[in-house]
């Protein structure tokens, strides 16, 4: 049966090719739309688990972080970044801003111009960093010598550059005041083309632990404090009283609520196009299948007269649909590579995650189902003799 189906597909290769390209585009379309949906929450994702617990984000006054935190009760964990200026590659004029990020904050993976994000590096180098585009020619695969004040005088620490951060991407930083009280507010765009400070002082991203080994007591002023699950309301109140004496705070609940509100708004804006695309895809698939079936109705009638059952004919159609679907997956991959290779690729969101794969297989199954249901609906209403008679008219 499979061989028979393949032969049938080869006989009408032009029509199959058109179908495969069309389905591939439909798959690609869905994947980029789903990826765009996920993009809206990518800043929030690293914090999702943390924000479900009880805690606060505190913006401390300068230098008071450690002292205040030591006064708090039932602190489960603390998340923060450290930042300080360093000289790199022995050039005193090349002042970099070094940013150490803990595991949670490094989980936000920006798009890279080249190479990989430092947190994804699994190679042999003991210290991997990511740098932003810089006028000093530091690129992926280079080693950057970071100057530090050691116990025995100045020292250089050599770090492997795992990748270069893309211009225009965002990184975890202080408040931007564009979305107050939300996680999205703590991401800042880096752009060495339009922001002079970014050009003069490129960034080096690394693990928090490594950064603190280079220099301690450089905790950023924005700190996430997670309370223990058994903390009481009174203890929370007491902690907040201590913190609000000099610092401003946002509870995790507030942050979660505001962040989700922003995500919902963004999703609502792109939904009309997504819904339109979905309706369009549904209609296209049904129409294509109906046309194909109508075209082949005469052949089916001949098969039937020669002893084949309608059920077998539907099976042939099913095999054809699944084969076309699988071929489309391959073509979709080629399309995605082509779009990525074009300049467009930099700003197109294409990620092949679990949901996207589910969508692709869902569409293939849907197409297979339609290609079974539509022919069944048409052939069940027709008698072979009638079909042949109609074809000859």
């Amino acid at each position, binding site marked *: 049966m499979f061989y028979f189906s393949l032969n049938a597909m080869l006989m009408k290769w032009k029509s199959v090719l058109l179908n495969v390209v069309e389905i591939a585009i439909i798959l690609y379309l869905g994947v980029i739309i789903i990826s765009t949906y996920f993009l*809206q929450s990518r800043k929030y994702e690293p914090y999702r688990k943390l924000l479900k617990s009880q805690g606060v984000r505190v913006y401390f006054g300068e230098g008071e972080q450690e002292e205040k935190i030591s006064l708090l009760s039932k602190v489960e964990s603390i998340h923060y970044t450290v930042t300080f200026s360093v000289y790199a590659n022995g050039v005193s004029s090349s002042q970099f801003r070094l940013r150490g990020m803990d595991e949670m904050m490094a989980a936000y993976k920006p798009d890279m111009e080249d190479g990989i994000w430092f947190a994804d590096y699994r190679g042999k180098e003991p210290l991997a960093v990511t740098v932003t585009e810089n006028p000093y020619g530091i690129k992926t695969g280079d080693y950057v010598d970071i100057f530090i004040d050691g116990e025995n005088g100045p020292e250089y620490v050599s770090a492997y550059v795992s990748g270069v951060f893309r211009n225009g991407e965002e990184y975890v930083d202080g408040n931007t005041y564009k979305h107050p009280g939300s996680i999205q507010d703590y991401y800042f765009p880096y752009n060495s083309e339009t922001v002079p400070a970014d050009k003069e002082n490129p960034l080096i991203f690394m693990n928090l632990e490594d950064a603190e080994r280079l220099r301690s007591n450089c905790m950023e002023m924005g700190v996430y404090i997670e309370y223990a699950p058994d903390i009481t309301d009174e203890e929370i109140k007491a902690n907040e009283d201590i913190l609000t004496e000099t610092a401003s705070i946002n509870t995790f609940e507030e942050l979660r609520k505001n962040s989700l509100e922003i995500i919902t708004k963004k999703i609502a804006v792109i939904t009309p*196009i997504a819904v339109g695309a979905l309706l369009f895809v549904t209609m296209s698939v049904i129409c294509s299948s109906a046309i194909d079936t109508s075209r082949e109705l005469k052949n089916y009638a001949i098969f039937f007269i020669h002893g084949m059952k309608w059920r077998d004919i539907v099976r042939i159609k099913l095999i054809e649909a699944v084969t076309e679907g699988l071929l489309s997956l391959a073509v979709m991959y080629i399309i995605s590579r082509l779009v990525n290779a074009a300049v467009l690729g930099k700003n197109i969101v294409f990620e092949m995650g679990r949901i996207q794969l589910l969508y692709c297989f869902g569409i293939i199954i849907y197409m297979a189902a339609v290609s079974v249901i539509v022919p069944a609906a048409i052939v069940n209403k027709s008698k072979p003799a009638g079909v042949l008679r109609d074809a000859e008219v």
Partner: protein
Amino acid sequence: MLLNNIKSLFKSSPLWMIFILAAQFAGVIIIMLAYSVYYNNRYELEASEYEGKRFLLTAGGSSEDVPLSEKVRNAFPEILSGYEDILEECRISSFLSDENGEVLTQQEMQLQHSIMTLPILTFFSVKDGRYVLIEDPPERYIEGRNLNEEDFTSGEHVCVVSREVRDTYGDTLDLCGQKYKIVGWEKEGLDELHHLNFFSRYMLRIPAEALPESVTKVEINISFKKVLLSEDYKILGDRFKEAFGSTVSDMSEGHTINIDAVKSLKTMMLAVLFMAFVSACNSVKFFGYMLEKRRKTTGIYLICGAKRSKAAGIYIKEAFLLQATATAAGFLVYLKLILPRMFAKYEYLEMIFEDVSDCVLLVVAYSALVLAASFISVTVNVYRTPIQIVKKTYGK
């Protein structure tokens, strides 16, 4: 003949004809929807990032060559060409380097004027190094007279000043070696609020044409009636830089647009582009199928002596008529029924649809793509010999 053909098509294959029309209709609606959402979001994004309708530009500097007022004036028509219709107001603030008096340089006296014609509604003034929006003083707050249109067009050396300046200089002000007659000044006894609103301490208003040549820094503030997009900022910024040299900086510098928002928009537009392509593929299928069903008719046309181009012409005209009808219907339904319901949720849509020419162009381009796809089907089916057509229809 054309209408009769279409009528008979509807009679013989009503479902397929509905498919063809519905596909085109839906395609137009989706394209329009995408256009609306895309531009609304872009304007929203740009308005939040760039303060929307304002273009601010600083040229020159205390230690650099400075653009002279005449140069500024002469360059403006060219710089703003293409934007005249949406231009609301254009203002220049200049800092003076004074050859004679120390007051101007030491106390950063600011000279204010407009290069545009009256009425001028607002001015900016420097106070404590910050820009503060102030209203143009109404006549009731002025002793003497306000500047008028004649002053601006004639370039008369006259000025309106704050009380402090009037008290210091009397009737005439000496600026950069040129004398300016003080024709109006801040009325005595204005309360603090009015004083701050209309007169900073050392403020002058001088007609643009009378601006002294020696200025150290010019700040150009242009207000538009509608939100600008970043490409407009780039065009204007480049024109200013070309006119005044590299010392110019515009407000788009230092700003970066949220990359995720840009990615979402571009991805959605790519999705729509692909939808148009799928629609074109469908069109090839639909028309191909309809023509396959009419092979016998085509064969008869050709056997009866019709040229292939004539036969193809009949089918292409049919395709055009069907698509034009569906496109027009989709366009009208969107404009009259769907769009008005979107105004409440998408705040920039009314502004975007003030001019529908871009939108019409987009729909025409989309329809042309679909028509071109139909043309392929027609060509493949018609440019066969009558014998091939008969063989295809009845088998070998």
